[in-house]
């Protein structure tokens, strides 16, 4: 595929009119024909009345040819590989805002690192990059970080990334202290003792493959504990990568009880089951591990009924060496920026949900949770948008992924839904030439 991807192009922006689009704006509930006018970096006008005649002389007109124009995706959970590579992959995946996890090298536990990442990302201009600060020092699960100062520097919330906080007293203090500043705490729910040495969901498959299993209950046991602590401390808790029936039931009950709890899942957990690891496929080695089919179905149901609040890419780039190993030695995680939209669109194509409701989980819902000025087509807001063809098919392969790392659990899978144009602050940052042969 040929792609034009301008970087750092900061020429003065005029006015651009996007016409003949199917506008999808979950924030307002509008799904219908229309257009958008952007002036410089913001949305000036949006609605069904915008046509070619809305353009004055010298205005650039972009004909959307009936494709879907929606707010740029907001990705709640991304591991930053290289900033440049990650941002390119994000742009090509229609993601205009993303939040990185703190478990990188160096760990995000200092205001200067938060500012450094934001500054570099701004300079690059391909996507807006936000961070979660480390909940504990060096991710050791022992001592709290400076939540207030990190938040002032720009950290949106706190989490220890892939490390679960095992000490209940520490978790209590984290939630308690974060509540002081009304900050979001996100957790990776896994009981470390039950998961020790485990590389896949315990069951018939691990027995057959001779792999050490992680019992499914390792997830809900951790969630149950954190929900009890949340009840005690108050505050805002968010649970990442929900993947089991039991977890869904626990979170649903907590929501009914009125606890301030939200959660997410990622495409692998509603589009793949543990059979994907057959043949020791290390690309399908994830954390939490892929689950048996009934759990996948339950996750779809939980997305539909609103128990699960948002969908993230859970983008975790790994180099070839760390995946080209025996299964139990290989690294966990899969890239997800390019497959977030198309695999999520399975929910629409399979008749589970309306298109606008799927888009809401990828845009408005995460933006609202993070209090970001993003995820909606509203006058005066930043012109962060994505134009996509919901039906166009393509095949996931190392050639079609834009991230440097190619470790996709969906490798080889045909998907439906292609990003045609991504706009950040009024500027095109990704263009698919199939849609715009002339430009």
């Amino acid at each position, binding site marked *: 595929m040929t792609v034009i991807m301008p970087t750092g192009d900061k020429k003065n922006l005029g006015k651009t009119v996007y016409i003949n689009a199917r506008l999808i704006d979950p924030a307002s509930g509008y799904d219908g024909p229309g257009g958008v006018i952007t002036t410089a970096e913001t949305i000036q006008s949006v609605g069904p009345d915008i046509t070619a005649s809305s353009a004055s002389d010298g205005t650039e007109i972009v004909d959307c040819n009936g494709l879907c124009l929606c707010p740029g995706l907001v990705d709640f959970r991304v591991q930053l590989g290289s900033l440049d590579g990650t941002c390119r992959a994000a742009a090509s995946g229609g993601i205009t805002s993303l939040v990185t996890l703190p478990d990188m090298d160096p760990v995000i536990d200092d205001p200067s690192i938060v500012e450094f990442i934001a500054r570099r990302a701004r300079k690059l201009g391909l996507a807006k990059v936000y961070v979660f600060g480390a909940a504990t020092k060096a991710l050791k699960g022992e001592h709290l970080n400076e939540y207030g100062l990190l938040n002032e520097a720009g950290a949106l919330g706190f989490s220890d990334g892939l490390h679960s906080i095992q000490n209940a007293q520490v978790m209590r203090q984290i939630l308690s202290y974060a509540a002081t500043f009304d900050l979001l705490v996100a957790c990776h729910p896994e009981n470390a003792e039950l998961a020790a040495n485990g590389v896949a969901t*315990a*069951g*018939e*498959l*691990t*027995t*057959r*493959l*001779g*792999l*050490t*299993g992680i019992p499914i209950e390792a997830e809900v046991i951790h969630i149950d504990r954190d929900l009890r602590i949340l009840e005690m401390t108050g505050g805002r808790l968010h649970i990442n990568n929900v993947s089991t029936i039991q977890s869904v039931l626990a979170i649903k009950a907590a929501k009914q009880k009125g606890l301030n709890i939200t959660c997410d899942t990622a495409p692998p957990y509603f589009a793949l089951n543990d059979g994907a690891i057959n*043949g*020791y496929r290390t690309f399908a080695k994830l954390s939490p591990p892929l689950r048996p089919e009934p759990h996948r179905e339950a996750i779809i149901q939980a997305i539909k009924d609103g128990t699960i609040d948002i969908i993230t890419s859970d983008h975790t780039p790994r180099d070839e*060496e760390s995946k*080209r*190993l*025996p*299964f*139990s*030695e290989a690294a966990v995680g899969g890239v997800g920026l390019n497959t977030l939209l198309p695999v999520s669109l399975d929910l629409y194509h399979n008749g589970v949900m309306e298109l606008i409701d799927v888009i809401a989980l990828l845009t408005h819902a995460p933006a609202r949770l993070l209090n970001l000025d993003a995820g909606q087509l509203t006058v005066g807001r930043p012109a962060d948008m994505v134009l996509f063809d919901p039906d166009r098919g393509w095949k996931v392969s190392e050639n079609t992924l834009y991230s440097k790392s190619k470790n996709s659990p969906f490798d080889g899978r045909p998907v439906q839904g292609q990003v045609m144009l991504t706009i950040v602050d009024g500027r095109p940052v990704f263009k698919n030439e199939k849609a715009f042969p002339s430009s």
Partner: protein
Amino acid sequence: MNIADASADQFSHRHLLGCEGLTPPEITALLDSSEIFVEQNRQADKTGAALKGRTVVNLFYEASTRTRTSFELAGKRLGADIINMSVATSSVNKGETLVDTAMTLNAMHPDVLVVRHPSSGAVRLLSEKVNCAVINGGDGQHEHPTQALLDALTIRRRRGRLEGLRIAICGDILHSRVARSNIHLLNTMGCEIRLIAPQTLMPIGIQSMGVKTFTRMEDGLDGCDIVMMLRLQRERMNSCFLPSVKEYFHFFGLDYKKLQFAAKDALIMHPGPMNRGVEIDTEVADDVGRSVIREQVEMGVAVRMACLETLSRNLDLGRQKT
């Protein structure tokens, strides 16, 4: 002889990575071919020339005495050049990855690689990167196919058949690749398999592999024709898997008292090396009328000769095709 006709009934795979998926004719073909080598090995002159000029490499990432020696003897008795590479002397300790080691060895044009590795699936990964034939000499907790073949050969020679026999496999099933390979092979050959272990050592969902599970020796051994004991590894003896050796031996160690629940002429097997007084009582292990443990070792060499010979022949057929 028409090669196409013959290969339909024979073991025609490029590698021997496991017993899962093998067909009864394939297993029978390997066992039949092993019988010939049993006889050869009992002669004064044991050396043939079937693998003359061939190179076999034993690549062992785990300590092993008997399996490695058995493969080494098998190769030598077929006239092959055989070298041993073990972790202690190889560049693995210098941080080279499995795949890189595989590619390096591959560049030296070996004909057969025998690989043992502590990670399940590692041998398969390696087999995807080389041009030679690969024999799984044991991968993690996954498979150990030549052990299952030698067990089957031992049983078949003693009982004249495999089909319809009731076989108990006892002990640390959870960590045992021997158990998994035996389950696949013996199931395919029509045996009834019973697993006996404390619940901490019984893998979940194993029933789906076509076995019955028991937690009491008295129940599980009932009417068994064969009693296979598994080695209990030292690190499991006093851990959260088991409280103590004493308790394990009392409830799961094979002694005459428990053996009386099995069929009167039941044979006793063990893949070795044995922990006397842990999973098996010394007297039972040495009972010449019942224990076939040493015979298993003898069959091991013959089975490995058959595997080396068969895979080398398949390599030639493959080369002819291309």
